[in-house]
Every structure is written in C-alpha cells, then in structure tokens.
C-alpha cells in the first residue's frame, strides 16, 4: 500500500541536496526580513516580555508552513513541465506510497526551515526552549500543509492556479495565523474565525512550548486530525489524477 514511498522521498531529498545552500539560503529570507522589520526595527515588548521572544516561535511555525507548502510548486513543475509524475504513475507505486514520500519530503523542508528560523532567532538573542513539544507542533503543522499541498497540486490545472492558491490561502494565513500578534486580542468573532486556521493552533502550541508555558493537548489533536484529513484528501487526489 505504501510501496515506493522511499523512492519518492529519495528523489526529493536528492534534489534538495543538489540545490543545497541555495535552498537553505532561500528558506532564511522571509524569517530574516520579518525579524529585521518587526523584531528589530520595531522592537518593543508584549506582555512585559520582548516582542522578539513572541515572534520567533511564530515565525518558526510560519516557516514550517510555507516550506512544507512549497512542495506543491515542485510537484507542479515535475507534473506539468518535466512530466516526471508520469514516470511515477507508470511505476507500481500506490497513491498512498507517492503521497507519503512527498509529504515526508515536505515535512523535511518545513522542519529544516523552522530549525533555520530558530537559528536566526538565536542570532537575534532569542533562546526559545525547543523541546519535543515544540518540534511536535511544527511537525504536525508541516504534516498538514505538506498533505494539503500534495492534494491541491493534483487538483489544479496549471502553474497559474498554484500561484493563486498560495495568494488566497497561504499568504493570508501567514499574517492572520498568530505569527505576528496574539489572536486573543482581536474581537471575539475574529478570534473565533482565526481559530479555524491550522496555523493559529501551530503557533499557539509552538509558542507555549517555547516559553515553557503549560501546554493544552487540544492544538496537537486538532493539527493531527486536520493532517490525517488532508493526507486522505491527498491520496484520493493522486488516485484521481488521471485524464
């Protein structure tokens, strides 16, 4: 049922390694700019604590989201431009095997980006407590967004559709998912609305873990549940990705 996942993952890992420093450097651009603009230039405090300490775990969650989601662009290029998806589909690889390989590749990218963001935070003097709960929150976040990316990459018909999805889904979520401000400070209706975003739960869990606060299990269950649903959606999308 999952046969072939390692081949799919190996290919993505090989390409990631081939692109090497270029990819790692590109993963740093957004978090670095946000740290400079919001954390440094507009430095201040939030609830008597430096704003940077609030910002870094949120940026790590956001980076894990954007980089896991970025697997969709690679799948698109492989599918529409290089036609490599045809080679995978002609092989005895079940849809679940393909999805698992791609999702793990997306998670690898997401967690690498989060680790780089934490590293950048250290350079800015922030030392978050990155224990298992912190990484579990980011891994579940990456799992959800990588699965969603694979599923939607199979549904869209062109590169333009992909760019539109990013504009309408990922960009608003990056800004509204609690990365830059505490969503609890918004009006009740807006707060409730933003709780529908998986990133909101990832940032809350990662931030609580990073600051040593008491961790409720709810965000982990919500992220895990959403991730499983997105994974099933991805498997179904791959199975239907025939003309």
């Amino acid at each position: 049922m999952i046969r072939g996942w390692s081949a799919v993952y190996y290919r993505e890992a090989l390409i990631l390694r081939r692109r090497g420093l270029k990819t790692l450097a590109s993963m740093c651009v957004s978090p670095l700019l946000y740290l400079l603009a919001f954390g440094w230039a507009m430095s201040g405090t939030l609830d008597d604590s430096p704003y940077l300490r609030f910002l870094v775990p949120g940026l790590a969650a956001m980076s894990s989201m954007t980089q896991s989601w970025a697997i969709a662009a690679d799948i698109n290029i492989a599918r529409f431009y290089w036609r490599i998806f045809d080679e995978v589909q002609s092989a005895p690889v079940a849809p679940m095997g393909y999805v698992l390989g791609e999702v793990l590749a997306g998670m690898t990218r997401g967690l690498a980006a989060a680790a780089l963001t934490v590293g950048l935070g250290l350079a800015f003097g922030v030392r978050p407590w990155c224990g298992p709960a912190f990484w579990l929150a980011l891994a579940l976040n990456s799992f959800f967004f990588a699965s969603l990316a694979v599923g939607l990459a199979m549904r869209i018909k062109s590169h333009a559709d992909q760019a539109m999805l990013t504009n309408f889904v990922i960009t608003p979520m990056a800004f509204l998912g609690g990365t830059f401000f505490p969503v609890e400070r918004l009006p009740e209706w807006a707060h409730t609305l933003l709780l529908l975003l998986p990133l909101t739960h990832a940032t809350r869990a990662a931030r609580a873990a990073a600051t040593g606060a008491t961790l409720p299990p709810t965000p982990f269950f919500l992220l895990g549940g959403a991730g499983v649903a997105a994974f099933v959606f991805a498997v179904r999308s791959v199975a239907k990705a025939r003309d």
Partner: protein
Amino acid sequence: MIDLENITKRFVGANALNGVSLRVGAGEIFAYLGPNGAGKTTTIRILTGLCAPDGGRALVGGVDVVAQPTVAKALCGVVSQAVNLDQELTVAENLDIHGRLFGMPPGLRERRARESLERLDVADRADSPVRELSGGYKRRVMIARALMHEPRVLLLDEPTVGLDPAVRRRLWAAIKRIRETGATILLTTHYIEEAEFLADRVAFLDAGRVVALGAPRELMARLGDWAVDALNGEELRTDFFNDRGEAQTFGAGLPGPFSLRRVNLEDVFLRVTGRKLA
C-alpha cells in the same frame, strides 16, 4: 501479451478511442500507426494506468490494468513521447530512482542500470547531468531506464520523434536488439519507414478505430508491389501494380510526368481512409 477488448475512451467533445480491439503476441514488435490525434497515445496511457478507459478491457500479460494496476505496471516498461527524465539529476541517478520505484534491491539496481546503459550505448554518460545530453541521448537513456526492471512488455510512444535520421536508425537497431531479450514491444509512430523496418505487425488507427491490421508485407501486398504517382489535374493519383514492367508501361502511357516506386504502408493507409498519414 497485450489484449485490448473493445476499448472506448471519450474526452470532452470527442471519442479518442471507439471500440479498439487487438491482440499483441509475446515477443512481437507491434506498430501502432496513425495521424496525430488518432488515439495512439491514449492507448498507451490506458495500458500504463495514466488514463482509465470508459469501456472495454485492457490486459497486459493477462492482468487487467484497471483491476490490478500495480501488478500490470510491474510488467511494463514505458517510454513516453515527452522526455520525462529528471533534468536536475544525472543519468545514473535517474535510473537508480526508477529501480527504487520498481522495488529493486541496491545491488541489482546498479547491475541492471549498467547493463541497460551499455545495451543502449550510453554507459559513458552515466555520470552526466541529463540537462547536458542531446535529444538522441535522452531518448536512449529513457529506453535504458524502461528496460531496467526487465519488463515483459515495452511500450514506446513515438520513440524517435524529433530525432535526426542517423540517430533514429541507431535507435531502431537498439529496439531490434531489445526484441532478442524476448520482450514484447508496442510502439506508436507516424513514421512509415519505422514501422516497415521494425514491426512484425501493424495496426492503423484512424479517429479512434483500428482500420487495418496485419503484417506490413501482407498489407502492402494487397495493393501490389509497385506504385505509379502522377498528377491528375490538381490531384496526385496513385496506381498500383504487381509487376514493375507493367507499372513502367502504364506510367509511360500517361500524358504527364510520373514516378515509379515501391508500395509502402502510407499507401495502405491512404487506400483505407482516403487520407495521408501526416
């Protein structure tokens, strides 16, 4: 080895395949000929599980490609019309990933990759990035990759399209050598000379239907051995003869210039459909 039973496939607004039935025997080289849009690639895509038929059954080695897709796929090697190699990787890496996709263990992967590349005369480029290869090399690498897991059926979709004549002939030689391994080969093409040189049997496909089927010589013999082309007003008229002398005499009796040549498969297609292949 390949059985198509009344296959139909409909895309929006058009029937791509309209009740196609044919059988390709083990060890046979079978050419699937037809103009662009006739349904050749759709047939290959159905056999490889890239496309589901709307009706009928497709079997590879007795395995239904819809009911047991992973079993059927393991029996097939596919060379698609578009170059679908990973351009960022080397030739060897492309083959290695193919071996992994087919569940081959490491030692076997390396050995088969080396053998396949040697068979196609591209072993010297194993460490070259694919993006640095010429079109002909890429085609040969694609065939080598498709052979890595020793498929019982090799599906070649327009394997020589866009290649210069010399490279095309080298590929033909390679395909002939592959047949010696016992593989069944189904190739689509719209190059008449390719089908004549390679195929044991051919099927002509037109507007989603098989309109003629048989050995090239047998199909051509139905028309004769010699053809005389001459202009009849604004139309090109072709007459067929069994005897060269008879054809020569006929041509000499025509009011204008004429050309005498051997009958080819294009004549067969023209006779059956009233249209040229390309």
